[in-house]
């Protein structure tokens, strides 16, 4: 029988910032072809978990494997595309065009000392078309709206054709219509190219319909498993770990009521 290979494997991850525990005993495995939605309330440790997977933070305890090997010897950064929660934290006066920003997504694929060429530029333009920003190539990044910038950062994550996409609330600031087309694009990337996805989101209703798997995090993993299993949970089970009430509407969930 065909076994999907392991892309991310977390075992007993605990992370403390100074003395406050952000994550406690988190274990999770993402396999090839899976689309995981990671959900949880504010401050539940979602971004912390992603940063640990990306090697930006070292966990206090626990082990991480990426693409079957330990994270410490992981050298294939080009296989991971990343959109952070605060991508647009740069100065709006930064002199760079949209195209230059997207091309910087090829840094790891090219390798040290190699220069980006016309071929790379073509790839960047293609990625911009995917997020419908093809007309803005020469625009200065600081002149775009927040949602447009976010789409550029998504293009930067896609341009290197990664095997794994890690996204921390990528659709913040993007309007409803474009959010839907973005998610259907993710779903397509996942189904047609087998790209594994780990997506943090508060748009629970949309994403849990598209994702193949759902993980519910609040310091520790309260639920993880296939989408169908998640759907079987009752509202009160969901609300129990989320910390405040969640209602399901027409087989969908609304955003948590705060």
């Amino acid at each position: 029988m065909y076994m999907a290979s392991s892309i991310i494997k977390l075992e007993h991850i605990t992370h403390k910032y100074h003395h406050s525990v952000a994550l406690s005993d988190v274990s999770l495995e993402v396999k090839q072809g899976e689309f995981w939605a990671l959900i949880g309330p504010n401050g539940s440790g979602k971004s912390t978990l992603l940063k640990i997977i990306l090697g930006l933070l070292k966990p206090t305890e626990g082990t991480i494997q990426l693409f079957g090997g330990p994270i410490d010897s992981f050298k294939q950064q080009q296989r991971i595309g990343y959109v952070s929660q605060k991508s647009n934290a740069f100065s709006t006066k930064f002199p760079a065009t949209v195209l230059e920003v997207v091309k910087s997504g090829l840094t790891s694929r090219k390798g040290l000392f190699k220069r980006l060429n016309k071929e790379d530029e073509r790839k960047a333009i293609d990625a911009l078309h995917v997020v419908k920003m093809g007309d803005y190539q020469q625009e200065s990044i600081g002149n775009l709206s927040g949602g447009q910038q976010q789409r550029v950062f998504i293009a930067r994550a896609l341009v290197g054709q990664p095997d794994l996409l890690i996204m921390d609330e990528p659709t913040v600031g993007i309007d409803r219509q474009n959010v839907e087309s973005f998610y259907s694009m993710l779903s397509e990337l996942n189904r047609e190219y087998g790209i594994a996805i780990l997506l943090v989101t508060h748009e629970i209703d949309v994403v849990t319909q598209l994702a193949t798997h759902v993980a519910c995090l609040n310091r520790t993993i309260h639920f993880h498993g296939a989408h169908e299993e998640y759907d079987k949970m009752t509202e009160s089970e969901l609300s129990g770990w989320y910390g405040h009430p969640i209602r399901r509407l027409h087989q969908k969930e609304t955003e948590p009521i705060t």
Partner: protein
Amino acid sequence: MIEAIFTYEFLQNAVLSGLIIGIIAPMLGLFIVVRRMAMISDALSHVALAGIAGSLYLSQQVLFFAALNPVYLGMGAAVVGSLLIERLRRVYKSFEELAIPIILSAGIGFGAIFISLAKGFGTDLVGYLFGSVSAVSRQDLYIVIMIAIIVIAFLYFLYKELFSLAFDPEYARVSGVNEQVIQAAFMIITALVIGASMRIVGILLVSSLMTLPVAAAIQVAKSYKGALMYSIVFGEVAVIIGLISAYYLDIAPGGTIVVTSVIILLFVLFWKKIRS
């Protein structure tokens, strides 16, 4: 002046060094400014001052130093200073910018000590502080050429890593860019450019040549490549006008170059204002 350039070697040295510095100082300056590190070049130039003053003082005391070009010790001090800043930035993680005044004051402190210990290198020292058209030797020119080759190679081969680090350091780290190594190399390169530039523009004005043309460039450029081109153009214009006026008016070129840069910046700001 053209005739004089063909006649006098010192003028050739000054003009060629000036033209080269007009390229490399603003070029590197762009990477410094966009990373909000403009003050670092200031700190390093003051450390270079300590090195120069130390070398001038030692040359009165020890025979070996009398034969040594003070630029070497100045540059060496700046390199050491650059590594110290990197260390301090890690010690004061949440107050990174504190590293700069610490190193800057240390530089001025040592500089002041050496200057008072030694009596009577007044004119030499003024040349190092504000630049000089007549004091640039062939050896100085060769140093400048060597450093220019290193700087251009560094920026050429690590362009995408440096861009990535400047625009989004976290993303650069996720892309596997070795931030610590590149940052250390970057600091050393900055120290070298300061060393190369101080003969012409002077220690006190080196950092202006690294920041003023860039400040004007980012007002007009849309792209990073464009900002790089504008920085170089503004830097070259300032050096050329500055050197010519320094030669005819017989004043320190550091002053004329920097004042020209300021005028270019004001002009660009004014031009932007009337266009919008």
